[in-house]
């Protein structure tokens, strides 16, 4: 009897440890697999097939984060390398161009999502502080393919103006530029829109560096994602281990898993510069 009790006690103690081991092993395997997959992809990249294009929606998002204006040529994210996502001043113009440039798209989920993501990154209207905020998508014109029921209500612009007057929302100044922060947020960049010679040279060097490394985010943003990823993955691992050990229901486990997954994805994003 005593031996059985002792065995049960040991089993109970071992459970969390084993859970932690399983999770750690899973995460480690993921990290080990990632470079192998990247290597495989690099091998494939030696012969890039032209048909392998980005989804149109994602493409629009890239338009937003890189302030690309020429659909024929995708430009490397020089802005992202300098952590400048888009000029705030001509943001409205860029949004209009976005609508016009994407006029040959289809109203698929991916395209609609891409359009609103692009508008979010380009919008001069935002909520939050000067240094860290979230863009508010307020397109003034829409692409022809976007159905009426997927457009914002007609009063959205007026509501936004009232919110700006009331101090709830802010509008970026004409000469301000944005930088992407933490993947989804923005901040107003210290860099000026005017391209002075030294600034142009710096940007050219950064773009060349980005072209060599095939990266789309700069060192600062990579550091931010590394920090956030570490905290999220750590907290997610602990929460998931506790959720499994205490046998909580799927909703809690789902939240913990999502946190762990997003953390690992952030870490991978920081590692690859994508």
């Amino acid at each position: 009897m005593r031996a059985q009790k002792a065995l049960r006690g040991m089993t109970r103690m071992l459970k969390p440890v084993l859970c932690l081991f399983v999770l750690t092993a899973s995460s480690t395997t993921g990290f080990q697999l990632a470079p192998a997959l990247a290597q495989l992809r690099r091998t494939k990249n030696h012969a890039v097939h032209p048909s392998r294009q980005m989804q149109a929606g994602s493409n629009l998002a890239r338009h937003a984060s890189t302030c690309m204006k020429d659909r024929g040529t995708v430009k490397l994210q020089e802005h992202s390398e300098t952590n400048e996502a888009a000029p705030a001043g001509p943001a409205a113009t860029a949004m209009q161009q976005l609508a016009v440039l994407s006029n040959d798209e289809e109203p698929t989920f991916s395209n609609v999502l891409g359009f609103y993501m692009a508008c979010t990154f380009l919008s001069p209207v935002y909520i939050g502080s000067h240094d860290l905020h979230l863009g508010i998508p307020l397109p003034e014109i829409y692409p022809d393919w976007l159905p009426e029921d997927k457009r914002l209500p007609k009063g959205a612009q007026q509501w936004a103006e009232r919110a700006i007057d009331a101090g709830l929302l802010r509008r970026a100044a004409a000469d301000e530029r944005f930088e992407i922060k933490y993947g989804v947020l923005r901040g107003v960049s210290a860099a000026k829109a005017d391209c002075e010679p030294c600034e142009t040279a710096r940007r050219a060097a950064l773009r060349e560096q980005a072209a060599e490394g095939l990266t789309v985010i700069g060192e600062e943003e990579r550091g931010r994602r590394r920090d956030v990823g570490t905290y999220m993955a750590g907290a997610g691992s602990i929460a998931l281990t506790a959720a499994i050990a205490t046998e909580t229901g799927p909703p809690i486990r789902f939240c913990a898993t999502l946190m762990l997954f997003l953390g690992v994805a952030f870490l991978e994003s920081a590692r690859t510069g994508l």
Partner: protein
Amino acid sequence: MDGTGLAPVPPQIARRLRDKVTGFDLKWSTIGAVAVPFLTLFDFKAALLDALQ
């Protein structure tokens, strides 16, 4: 020029970058689609007890 004062990136590099970004998105979407439901729904307790017996 794209408003940055810089010449466009060569199409070949742009295509490689696009390919890399697509691969990254695809990879992590797939991992998420598999890993999140698994870790949410898998009965670790039963599996551990089976393993310990």
